[in-house]
């Protein structure tokens, strides 16, 4: 049974509130939306970037993510819950977590946390792709869901993730501690939200 909560996003241009569903699952409809709406939009963006001669390093770094494969790999596993946000009849964001990881931040090292394996918002909601956003707040809403799950599981709100370079600034300003590049994980920076930061983050949201 999927748990559905109502949240509010805002439109990218006029900041009007838009009701949305936060769902504690990634279901077939989300994968259909990813395949039939996100992927074509991403391909159009990549073509445009190529035409403009934008260097590959500046292309969206998650363009190759295959959500159908990611979901198939964790289907039915309790340790890897998924979340999705649906608004205006369309999937606006997806997140997959791993509940088997432990904290690295010295004060909480070894204690469990909710690790964000993947978090992606629809191409039309990505600020790094240049055009006016359709909806704002999708990424932050997914982070809030991760903190809430961590609290519900007794992990005190601790969450962690490896960030793609284009998202480093987003996680830094969202209250994560930056533990630096991880040599065992393609050199991606590892970020962790401590219990204290999680409490503050949750209160702000």
């Amino acid at each position: 049974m999927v748990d559905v909560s109502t949240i509010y996003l805002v439109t990218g241009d006029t900041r009007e509130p838009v009701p949305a569903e936060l769902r504690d699952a990634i279901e077939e409809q989300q994968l259909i939306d990813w395949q039939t709406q996100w992927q074509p939009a991403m391909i159009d963006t990549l073509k445009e970037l190529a035409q403009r001669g934008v260097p590959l390093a500046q292309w969206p770094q998650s363009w190759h993510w295959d959500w159908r494969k990611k979901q198939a790999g964790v289907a039915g596993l309790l340790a890897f819950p998924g979340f999705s946000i649906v608004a205006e009849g369309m999937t606006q964001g997806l997140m997959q977590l791993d509940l088997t990881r432990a904290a690295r931040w010295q004060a909480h090292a070894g204690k469990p946390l909710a690790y964000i394996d993947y978090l992606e918002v629809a191409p039309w909601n990505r600020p790094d792709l240049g055009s006016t956003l359709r909806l704002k707040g999708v990424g932050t809403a997914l982070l809030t869901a991760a903190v809430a799950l961590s609290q519900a599981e007794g992990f005190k709100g601790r969450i962690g993730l490896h960030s793609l370079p284009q998202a480093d600034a987003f996680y830094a300003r969202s209250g994560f501690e930056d533990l630096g590049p991880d040599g065992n994980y393609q050199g991606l920076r590892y970020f962790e939200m401590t219990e204290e930061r999680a409490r503050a983050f949750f209160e702000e949201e």
Partner: protein
Amino acid sequence: MKKTMTLNLTDAEMRVLDDLSSRKDLSKTAVLRQALRLYQAVEIRVEKGDKLVFENEETREKAELMLL
């Protein structure tokens, strides 16, 4: 929705549960929920033919955990 059940544990098992609860800063229920997740994840990987291996980060020595 969560359901409640009674768990019968020996003294030794209860000591381990208490110890994990204390070291991981988790309630006993949270420890058991975490154990269930890990057990399921390991079982499914092993059923697919994967091995469960522990590696010492310093020595890089690997030890296989036999699951019977």
